[in-house]
């Protein structure tokens, strides 16, 4: 999670480091555009390996950004992943914080 910014802190110090990691950013952006998905769908769409996705998903769950529901469809287990409200807000804040920085770098 982000720490409070200092008076002359670098703009990047405000960036949420949970969101900032490339793999987690990919996962969050994928979950942001859908309602929910199971593990396999996110894996297929992001191209991450099982271990990598599982580990990042645990971090995101610990941060309260992703909710994980386990259920059964018939006899098959299904792990449904969903962005929480705070996860959605964190992603929006991240994008809002990064945009001006990237705009300046683009000039």
């Amino acid at each position: 999670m982000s720490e409070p910014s200092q008076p002359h802190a670098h703009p990047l110090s405000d960036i949420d480091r949970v969101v900032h990691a490339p793999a987690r950013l990919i996962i969050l952006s994928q979950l942001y555009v859908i309602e929910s998905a199971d593990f396999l769908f996110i894996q297929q769409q992001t191209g991450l390996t099982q271990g990598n996705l599982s580990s990042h998903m645990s971090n995101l769950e610990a941060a309260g950004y992703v909710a994980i529901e386990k259920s059964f469809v018939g006899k098959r287990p299904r792990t449904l992943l969903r962005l929480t409200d705070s996860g959605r807000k964190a992603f929006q804040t991240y994008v809002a914080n990064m945009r001006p920085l990237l705009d300046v770098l683009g000039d």
Partner: protein
Amino acid sequence: MENPQLSELERRAYRAVVDDGLLDILLGIMLLGFGLVTTTDVDYLPAVILVIAFPLWRRLRSTLIEPRIGHVGLHASRMSKIRRGKRKAMALFFLLTIALIAFILLKGSLGSQSMDLRSIIVAVVLGIPIAAGGFLLEMKRWVAYALLMLAAGIFEHVNGLANATGLFLSGSAVVASGLFLLARFLYRHPVPPNEASLDV
């Protein structure tokens, strides 16, 4: 989605749901059903196909598609767009079907010239909702299917072919296209070997 990259991600997720060819196969079967109606007495067939199509699609998706690419619940905005598109296409279909039934009931008094054009009329009546549905649901190939139906209807009319040949031709082509898409999908997405470990 206001961001183009996010919109593209959302579109990719949506395409994963509609690009497996199953809907195309069901559409083709429905066209063949309509063809059978005009050549036989089984006039309830399209209604039967319409009623079983959606549950069948869901069943096939959960047994054939989801073990390969997983399950996704689309975003609320996409779902409402799909619902609106489906409602409009169905309304158009029922409106045109009523018009077609009225035409069939009145065909005795409409004269032989209108009857000569029946293959084109049927293609238009079925093709317009299919094209509209394809356009509204961002499945552009369905617009191509509708054009194919019209071309087949014209071909039937110009060559004086047997009744419903155009529907059989276009229905078979749509089924073939769906089967091609499904085969390509199955080839590109094998079932992951260790499904049980796909867990967090």
